[in-house]
């Protein structure tokens, strides 16, 4: 149990996908203007990372390795991700139209969110079993969600402030993220 907890914490905080691995930057900068949007996108990411990390683990260990096809990793992973996203979209649409209303528009964006593919690829470098892989995916997703929500909360405030003209928009956002990343460096070394 402790082991799972450690994996979760390290994936979510010390190795935060957004702030120390820089994944999912594009969608983060594009969609962090409002905290509602950030929450919706974040939730969708958590869903998808947990499922795809587990699925990709199975595909990699039980299909690609036995048949000696490791060089097909990238294309397989991205297809698994695209298919999962499509599938989740259909399920949510049937089961809960209200949830679909909130998450629906974010799901297609997720296929090209590098955090999702990134989590699956980083997972390969670690000696994880099936459940650990799932926890790692879940933790990575939660970390990403927390980061984008914090950023969007700060951006909402910044919007009302005077910012040097050239820095408006992406420029100041990068600086905010930079400062937050510095803060997150403080967590490194917490878990060995």
């Amino acid at each position, binding site marked *: 149990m402790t082991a799972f907890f450690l994996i979760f914490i390290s994936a979510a905080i010390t190795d935060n996908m957004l702030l120390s691995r820089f994944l999912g930057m594009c969608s983060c900068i594009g969609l962090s203007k409002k905290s509602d949007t950030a929450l919706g996108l974040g939730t969708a990411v958590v869903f998808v990372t947990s499922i795809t990390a587990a699925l990709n683990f199975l595909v990699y260990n039980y299909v690609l390795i036995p048949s000696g096809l490791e060089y097909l990793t990238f294309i397989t992973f991205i297809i698994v991700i695209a298919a999962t996203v499509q599938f989740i979209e259909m399920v949510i649409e049937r089961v809960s139209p209200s949830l679909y209303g909130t998450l629906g528009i974010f799901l297609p964006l997720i296929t090209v969110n590098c955090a999702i593919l990134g989590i699956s690829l980083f997972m390969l470098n670690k000696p994880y079993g099936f459940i650990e892989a799932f926890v790692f995916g879940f933790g990575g997703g939660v970390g990403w969600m927390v980061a984008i929500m914090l950023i969007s909360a700060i951006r909402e405030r910044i919007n009302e402030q005077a910012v040097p003209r050239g820095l408006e928009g992406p420029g100041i956002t990068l*600086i905010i993220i930079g400062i937050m990343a510095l803060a997150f460096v403080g967590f490194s070394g917490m878990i060995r």
Partner: protein
Amino acid sequence: MAESTSAIFKRSLLSENPVLRQVLGICSALAVTNLLTNTLFMCAGVLFTTAMSNLVLSLMRNVIPQRIRMITQVAVISTFVMVVDVVIKALSPDVHRFIGPYVGLIITNCIIMGRAEAFAASNSPWPSFLDGVASGLGYSLVLIVIALVREPLGFGTILGIALPLKEHWWHQWTIMVMPTSAFFALALLTWVTKNLLGGTK
């Protein structure tokens, strides 16, 4: 919509630079820029992938059904990324160990998808190929500038070669090795270019 070659290059390198002006593809821009060698490998990979996938997708543009366009694009792009990955692994295993996962992430680099969608889907092969090369160069330009700031300040070297008289003036600026500095470097660069090129978006 016949855009001249020079217009394509000018647009992609400056006025619509993918990294600085459209804020695309910055994940890898931030992660690989602490050493110039890694940056150059990454840039070559992105350049090759944008150019080739634009070319192929433009050739295929009339036969791809609208509904599965996205997945076709992803499949074509990831094919080229696999080629890049194998080549980098063969040329320099050391570099590959460091940038390995980021090479895979070229697939989800928004620049490539963006160009495929915005340009190759509606233009003939040769301009699409040029557009791909130009966007790749625009991306490389920014990455190389950032790497040229980070590597000398963080390690006191350029391409792994120590700067002259390093021991007399150089003091390690640890933050430049850390990922965080990339955010600041990129933000300052956007600031400078925005002021130089003028105009708002």
